[in-house]
């Protein structure tokens, strides 16, 4: 039930955003997060954006995994 879908913010008006994933659009309330910009990725749960997705952290996680596994190490 706590599923959240990563969607990209397309437009923002007042506290509502139109978000999109794979061509599907949904309205979501921004009542729970600050400083959202068009183009950001957010997690949508029950019609609300519950948190922003940090693109840099996502890349870091994948990069660290890839590097460790390529070198035959146990990832941190």
């Amino acid at each position, binding site marked *: *039930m*706590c*599923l*959240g879908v*990563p969607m*990209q913010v397309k437009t923002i008006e007042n506290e509502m955003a139109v978000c999109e*994933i*794979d061509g599907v659009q949904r309205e979501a*309330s921004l*009542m*729970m*997060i*600050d400083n959202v910009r068009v183009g950001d*990725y957010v*997690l949508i*749960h*029950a*019609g*609300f954006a*519950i*948190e*922003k*997705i*940090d*693109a840099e*952290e*996502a890349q870091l*996680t*994948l990069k660290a*995994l*890839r590097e*460790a*596994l390529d070198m035959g190490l*146990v*990832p941190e």
Partner: protein
Amino acid sequence: MKYQAEFRDPQLAEGLLKAIAATSCDYPKNITLMEVCGTHTTAIYQHGIRALLPEKIRLISGPGCPVCVTPVTYVDHAVALAQRPETIIATFGDMVRVPGSSSSLLHEQARGATIKIVYSPLDAVTIAEKNPDTDVVFLGVGFETTTPTIAGAILTAARKNLDNFYVLCSHKTMPGPMAALAGDPELQVDGYLCPAHVSAIIGANAYQPLVDAYRVPCVVTGFEPLDVLQGVLMLARQVINGEARVENQYNRVVKAAGNRKAQKLLKQVFEPCDADWRGIGNIPDSGLRLRSDYVRFDAAQQLPVDIEPAVEHQGCLCGEILKGKVRPNDCLLFRTTCTPEDPVGACMVSSEGTCAAEYKYGT
């Protein structure tokens, strides 16, 4: 899908599985990890993760499906409200088929009650706005991920001055049952995969008291296959090294202090209360009720109804399943009397219930 496809990369998954096997192979004991969240349970079944892990690593499912842990009296209460004239019940889909003591919302719908499945609590507010002569009751179940959305809906209804919008509250909060189970000597949980989106709200630091009190490793873990595998690896490493710390695998979303704005929203509308958990029983301060400023939205107080005495279903092991003590196959009713089409217990109804996941994906 961005932020999903990358975290399902089969090559990286394979690498992680090898790393898990290499890390744990010399450890002399089994490692029991509990995935607390129902969304983890579903992901683990869906991607067949349990079968891929070394035998030594046992994943057990915990009390993290909100629909499953909601006691039968709550369903009976919702049924009684559905039977009122001029009432609309608005709810997330899963609640509709949960069996109460003698009925369910689905049965009531067949008998003429108006039940509307909504995607967001804000949709329920819109229904109330469009039906001013009808009482609209939203079924407020869920953990910290969902409760702020319900707080948001209540504030929206307050702003619109609606006098026909109510919530039947059964909100629960997370670290409490994990502490209850960490102290259970029968279970011997070696580590917790902490719920991803509950943690987005409460923050990774929220598990520190649990770690301090029970010395149990906690890793906040996302819901994609790579997340789960990395979470398992991080936990296995802590267990083997004899450590107990909070770690955050899911830092692309979860911050140490969580989402302060959502916490504030939640605190503005709700306050802690004791709560009953199916299977576990009463846990102090593990629920949320409306603050006095918002009691006019409380369906339990504002719309009195007679509720039938609760009858738990004979033979259903949901309670034990939610504590990770038995698996669905241990239940005599599983797949015979109890199926997703005709469920006996909540664990078979909810798409995140362990019995439903085992039915759909199990062998």
